[in-house]
């Protein structure tokens, strides 16, 4: 296997190196890459779309169709993780709960019985670890700031680096941090599996819904200019508004899917206990 690998690698690398001799020099402003399409994006992008961040302008407007499918890829990965990993195991017979304020441990024998006040108890099984006060407190302080930053990144994507995808990942990371520092159960209590599933679908529905709204208003798919008929916005900024709506959709979907993938991988699909 090692020899085979080396042979393939040498052939591929040789071919690729051979082809670099035709490339224009690195950073050369007269290369075809910089003279064919990009001058139009750079000089006209701001006027045509109203977004100073050209990457967002191209991402969400000129190539918005690509970005929709990029979100669909993420969505698909989330559903695939559910399809592959999620298992619904029967509750085991005996369960032990620890009452957090007092430290008393309860033993419950009936598998169908639930606790009256589950917030004050934690399940003790072979994966149970005692909580660390410092980590908990620090995360508790950090998480709101991370989330506000994520919202800023989504909302400010037109003007500065960032956008729906990055913001969604950061928001999802804050929820993953919650699951890491407390446990999976307490994070799923705040945002349930059902909620995550619906949010991920909602995100992509927002994106394609905006596109279809443009279609119903007489334009092509994702032609944000047509939204002037239903949004009371200055026509110069209508495309930027459309992009913002789309980015919010991307944010929802990506946030939900990141948490879905994490919960399924970390709990092997059982949703009992995180790391």
């Amino acid at each position, binding site marked *: 296997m090692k020899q085979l690998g080396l042979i393939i690698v040498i052939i591929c690398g040789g071919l690729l190196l051979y*082809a670099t001799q*035709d490339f224009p020099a690195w950073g050369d402003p007269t290369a*075809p890459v910089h003279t064919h399409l990009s001058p139009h994006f750079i000089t006209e992008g701001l006027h045509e779309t109203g977004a100073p961040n050209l990457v967002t302008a191209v991402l969400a*407007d000129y190539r918005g169709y*690509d970005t929709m499918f990029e979100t669909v890829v993420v*969505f698909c990965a989330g559903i*695939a993780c559910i*399809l*592959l990993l999620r298992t619904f195991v029967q509750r085991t017979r005996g369960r032990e709960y620890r009452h957090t304020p007092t430290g008393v441990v309860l033993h419950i024998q009936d598998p169908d019985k639930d606790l009256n006040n589950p917030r004050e108890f934690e399940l003790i099984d072979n994966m149970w670890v005692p909580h660390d006060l410092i980590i908990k407190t620090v995360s508790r302080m950090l998480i709101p700031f991370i989330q506000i930053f994520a919202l800023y990144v989504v909302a400010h994507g037109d003007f500065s680096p960032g956008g729906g995808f990055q913001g969604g990942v950061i928001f999802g990371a804050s929820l993953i941090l919650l699951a890491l520092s407390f446990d999976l159960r307490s994070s799923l209590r705040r945002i349930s599996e059902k909620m995550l599933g*619906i949010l991920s679908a909602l995100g992509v529905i927002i994106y394609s819904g905006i596109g279809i709204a443009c279609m119903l208003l007489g334009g092509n798919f994702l032609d944000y200019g047509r939204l002037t008929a239903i949004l009371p916005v200055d026509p110069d900024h209508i495309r930027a508004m459309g992009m913002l709506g789309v980015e919010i959709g991307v944010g929802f979907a990506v946030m939900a899917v990141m948490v879905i993938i994490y919960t399924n991988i970390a709990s092997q699909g059982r949703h009992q206990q995180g790391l």
Partner: protein
Amino acid sequence: MSAHYPALIILIPLLAAFLNTAFVWLDKRLCYPTTVLGLGGSVYFCIRLLLKVVGNGTMAYHVGGWAPPMGIELRVDNLSALVLLLVSVIAFMNIIASRKSINEELTFKSGAFYTIYLLFVTGLLGVVATADLFNLYVLLEITSLSAYALLAMGNQDRAPLASLNYIFLGVVGASFYLLGVGYLYIMTGTLNMADVNSLLPGIAGSSAVMVAFVFCLVGIWIKMGLFPLHTWLPNAYSYAPVSSSRVIAPLMTKVMVYVMIRMMISVFGLDFVFEQISLEGWVVALASVAIISGAVMALAQKDLKKMLAYIIVCEIGYMVGGAWLGNSQGMTGAILHIVNDAIMTFALFLVLGNIVFTRKKTAIKDLRGIFSSMPWTMAGFILVGISIIGVPPTCGFFSKWYLLLGGIEAGASFFVFALVLSSLISAVLVFRVVETAFFSPEDGGHEHEKAALNEAPVSMLVPLGLTGVAIIAVGIWSGYIVQHIILPFIQQGIS
């Protein structure tokens, strides 16, 4: 309204997929109707689109209202309209046929299955309709990602491992394709297929463009499963649940052949492929080796599923070889064979699905006496078998005929030999199964068991019947298909 058809065929299954996911948690009973409606809508618009394209010529759709080199363009010509119809119809029939087995195998996760299934179909339709090189990559990844999940689910122990191997090879394939697109982009500065095609003559003889072509081609071959790169294919298809392999096996490889033909004709241009690169001798030889080795390996299998998987490997060789013969007969044969082989493979997997549903066993020696218990299914099998061998009234004959004519015209005697040999071997394959099913007596010889009718449910037999009718109908109308759909496309490509 009709101007929006190219977008609608993709958007309807996509929206159905999203709604499906919401319904998984809201009301599960709505999942199946949504799926059927989404795929049915797609079939309806594909038929309308094909009629319109054949009547009025190529349709272009500018997403977002941006003109092509800036924005993304969807472009549907004769060939893509044909393949779109093929994809949507097969996907629709499969969902009808597999309802019962899905409900049995995945009771509580069926909603997630329908979602992934719809995304898979959306990805295939998008790959066929798009006219943008990078957009094709993104859609290809949606297709592959959903295919990985569809192939790995189920209770078979080895399915995840087979699917993981598929992921590794599939990612290499997609990355090679992306790399090829990058090399094209650095030389031309554009991603639109027509734009690349018009800029390429200006940089003729560039080694970077040549390497770009080679990498795109190898990437597509990996995804397609051409002979030395096919290692992921047999395991992935045979350990997967039938309801998913039944749609992936006929469609994934055929759509990749379509992408290869699209790259050859619409992106690089036939002049570039056959005059500047002139690899055709090598590729046709490789395809012939693929045909022979696929057929021989199919002969060596003891399990019906594995045998079908190797028949696919063999058929891929037909299409690749035909497309690279370098004459219009061969190209016609290759395109016609995309249609015919998709129908035949689908029919074979329908037969397989019926056997799995009623008997649970697929080893060839377990098929004894199956003819008396499942007469309709086995009648379907014989019809498909005749078509695979290439007997005249069925569709398999006509594409093979064009391929043979093309091979003789190009003087590729090895390819012609491989075609004839593989026909003989498939006759042996079909006869072996029929012999076991029909002639071998049942072990122990219980009379009442022999007579017991244990046929698959009607919802699985009707799609098989329709596919059987399609095999004959496509055979009878193949002259019409070639005259009005395939030849105009090839003439466009040459001029």
